[in-house]
C-alpha cells in the first residue's frame, strides 16, 4: 500500500481578533486600509438602513450582511474592473465598489428588475437566488474569457450551505479539468438559514473541496481585511496567469437573520452570537486604526457621517424611483416580442393602465 496523495489546507490571518497586526503581514497602504474601513462602515450602515426599510414596509425581504462586511470589501478592492464578478445575494460591499448603486440594491429587494440593469458595470452578473447555480455561470464565463484570449478572470461567491449543491461540485470539477481562470470565494458565515456548518458537511474545511477537483483551496479569516486582501490578490493573479483556479474559504459569522423573513434567535445560541459580536471585521479594523493612529475618533465620526449621508441620498433615490410598468415584463422577454405575446401584452396593459388611472 502506498500513499497516492495527501493534502494540506493553509489558514491565513494577519490581523487578529484583538486588532493586532502580525509582523508577517503583507504591505497595505494606509490609504487602502482607510478605504477598507470606509467601505465596511458604509456597508454596515447600509445594512441597518435596509433592514429598517423592510421592517417599515418600504422594501421586501432582504438578506443582511452584518458582521460579514470584509469579504465583499476585499473582493471589490482586488478584482479588476474588467474581470467578471458573479455574486450570490449578500455581496453589497463588492457590488458597491463595482459601481452598482446602493439604490439599485434596494430596488432589487424592492421587487423591480430594473435594479439588475447595473447602469455602469455591464458585464457583472446579477444576484443569484437558486443556490450555487451561479458557480456554473462563472465557469462558463471563465471558459469564454479564456477562449477569447482576454487576460480577465471570473470570480464567484457562494455561501457555506451552497457548497453542498451539485452545481458547486460540477463547477469546481470543470474549473480544475479545464484549468479555468476563475476564483471561487466561499462566504462561510457558519449558518445556512438554521443549519449550522457542523451539520452541513463532514469536511474539516470547505476549502478542501477544491482538492477533489484537483486544485488548491485555502482558508482565511474572513474578518481580517489584510489576510483577505493577500489571499485574493494571489488567487486572482494566479488565475490571470493561467495557473488555474483557487477556492477561498473566508470564515466569518452571520450576526443577523438569514433574511428579514427569518428569526435567528430560534436557533443561533446566544453565547455564540455574543462572542462573535466582539470580533467583527469593523470592530477589529477600528481598533487597529485607532491604535496605529492612522485614524482618530474624529476621523471615524466624519467617515460615519459621510457614509450615513451617502446612504440617505441613495435611499431617497430608491424611495423616489419610478415604479416599473407592466410593458417591461413583455418588452424584455426576447429580442423581439413574439407574436403570441402581443395580445397578452395588450390585456396586461389594459388592466395596468385602467388600475393606474
Amino acid at each position, binding site marked *: 500500500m502506498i500513499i497516492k496523495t495527501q493534502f494540506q489546507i493553509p489558514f491565513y490571518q494577519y490581523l487578529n481578533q484583538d486588532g493586532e497586526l502580525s509582523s508577517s503581514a503583507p504591505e497595505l497602504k494606509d490609504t487602502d486600509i482607510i478605504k477598507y474601513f470606509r467601505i465596511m462602515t458604509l456597508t454596515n450602515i447600509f445594512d441597518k438602513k435596509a433592514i429598517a426599510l423592510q421592517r417599515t414596509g418600504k422594501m421586501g425581504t432582504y438578506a443582511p450582511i452584518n458582521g460579514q462586511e470584509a469579504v465583499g470589501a476585499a473582493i471589490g478592492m482586488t478584482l479588476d474592473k474588467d474581470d467578471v464578478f458573479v455574486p450570490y445575494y449578500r455581496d453589497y460591499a463588492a457590488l458597491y465598489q463595482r459601481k452598482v448603486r446602493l439604490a439599485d440594491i434596494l430596488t432589487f429587494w424592492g421587487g423591480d428588475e430594473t435594479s439588475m440593469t447595473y447602469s455602469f458595470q455591464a458585464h457583472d452578473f446579477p444576484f443569484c437566488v437558486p443556490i450555487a447555480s451561479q458557480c456554473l455561470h462563472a465557469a462558463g464565463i471563465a471558459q469564454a474569457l479564456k477562449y477569447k484570449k482576454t487576460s480577465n478572470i471570473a470570480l464567484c461567491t457562494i455561501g457555506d450551505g451552497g457548497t453542498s449543491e451539485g452545481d458547486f461540485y460540477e463547477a469546481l470539477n470543470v474549473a480544475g479539468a479545464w484549468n479555468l481562470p476563475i476564483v471561487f470565494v466561499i462566504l462561510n458565515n457558519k449558518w445556512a438559514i438554521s443549519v449550522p456548518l457542523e451539520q452541513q458537511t463532514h469536511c474539516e474545511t470547505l476549502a478542501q473541496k477544491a482538492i477533489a477537483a484537483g486544485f488548491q483551496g485555502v482558508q482565511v479569516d474572513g474578518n481580517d481585511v489584510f489576510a483577505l486582501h493577500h489571499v485574493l490578490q494571489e488567487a486572482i493573479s494566479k488565475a490571470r496567469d493561467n495557473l488555474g483556479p483557487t477556492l477561498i474559504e473566508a470564515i466569518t459569522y452571520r450576526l443577523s437573520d438569514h433574511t428579514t423573513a427569518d428569526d435567528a434567535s430560534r436557533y443561533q445560541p446566544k453565547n455564540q452570537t455574543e462572542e462573535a459580536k466582539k470580533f467583527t471585521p469593523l470592530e477589529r479594523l477600528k481598533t487597529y486604526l485607532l491604535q496605529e493612529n492612522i485614524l482618530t475618533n474624529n476621523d471615524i465620526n466624519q467617515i460615519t457621517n459621510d457614509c450615513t449621508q451617502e446612504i440617505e441620498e441613495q435611499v431617497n433615490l430608491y424611495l423616489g424611483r419610478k415604479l416599473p410598468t407592466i410593458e417591461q415584463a413583455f418588452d424584455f422577454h426576447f429580442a423581439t*416580442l413574439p*407574436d403570441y405575446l*402581443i*395580445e397578452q*401584452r*395588450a*390585456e396586461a*396593459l*389594459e388592466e395596468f393602465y385602467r388600475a393606474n388611472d
Partner: protein
Amino acid sequence: MTIFYLPDLGEGLPEAEINEWFIKEGDTVKKDQPLVAMETAKAVVDVPAPQDGTITKLYGQVGAIIKTGKPLVEFNHASSSIVGQLEEHPDIALQHINLTNRQPELPKATFTVKKLALEYNVNLNDIVGSGQFGVITANDVLSHAKKTDCSRETLIGVRRQMMKTMQLSHQEIVPVSIFDEADINHWQKPYDITVRLIQAICYACKQEPGLNAWFKHEEKQIFNHVNLGLAVDSNEGLFVPVIKNANHLDALRLRQAINSSKQGVLERSLPPENFKDATIILSNFGRFAGKFANPIIVPPMVAIIAVGRVFDAVVAYQGEIAVHTKVPISLTFDHRPLTGGEATRFLKALIEHLEQ
C-alpha cells in the same frame, strides 16, 4: 466505419476458413442477411450480418483463415449508436410546400375590444390595428363601425344553429300550409291570447294526435303529452323554449310558464333541457306585421302553428255586415307522414276551441 469481428462459431473454435462470400465490397446488406459461409473443423456455418449497412472491406478471400475475434468484414455507417438501433428506410415524401404567401396573423385584441367588436358587428379581420404591435384598439373598432356601410358577420351561436335547422328542414320535410281565421269577437277582455292558443292547440292534438308527433327514419312517434315549443324572438336570434306537458297545465300555470320562458330567454338563463323535446311549435309572429305565413317545421316534429296579427274585419254575420275581431292562423304540416284530412281536422278543432 464499424469492423465486424469473427464471432465464436461454436464451443470456442479458434479459427475458421472462408468458404464462400455471399456479398462483395460495396453491397448494401440488411441485418441478419447471410454474409459468408465459414468452414470450421466441425461444419460450414453461415455468418449473418450483425446490422444494416454497406460493406466497405472484406478481410480475406475464399480460403483465407480468420482467427476468432479478428476482423472479418467492415461496414460503412454504424447505424447503431451507443444505444439502440436506427432504421434506414426511405419511404415518405417530406418536402414542404413552400408557402410564399404566409397566412396573415390573427387579429389581436383584448377581451374588452373583442366584445365591443361583437356589439358593433365589426369583423376584426377587416381592421388594421393602430395599437402597439398592431393590436386593435377600441377606437379602431368604433371608427370602423362608423365608416362601413355594410357590416359583416359570420354566423355563430344561436343564429348559426337556426341556419342549420332551416337547412335541414328544407332538405328533409315536405311542407304544406293551410290558412284560416278564428273569430274571437266574443272574447271577454282582458284576454290572454297566447294561453288560449296553447289550450286550443292541446285540444286539437287530442283530436288529431298525428300532428303531435315526431317523424324520423320512416317511423312516426305519436306523443300523449304536448311539449309546446314557444318561438321567442330576441336580439341574439330565435329561441324556442319548451313548455313541457302543456296539456296538463291550467291557464295560470301556462301564463307562468310563458313568462318564465320569455324571461329566461332574455336573461340567457335557461338550461339546455328547456330547449329539448318539443312535440309541436307555436309561433306568435304577428306582433309587428303579417297575417299568414308558412313557417318552417323543425325536424323531427311534423307540424307548426303560426299566428299572425289580430285584426278587425268586415264579416258577414247572421246575414248582416258586421265588424269582428279575428285572428289569422296558419298550419304547416309535413305531408310525408300526414294527410290533408288529418291536418284540416286538426285546424278545425283548433279554431273551434278558440271560437267557443
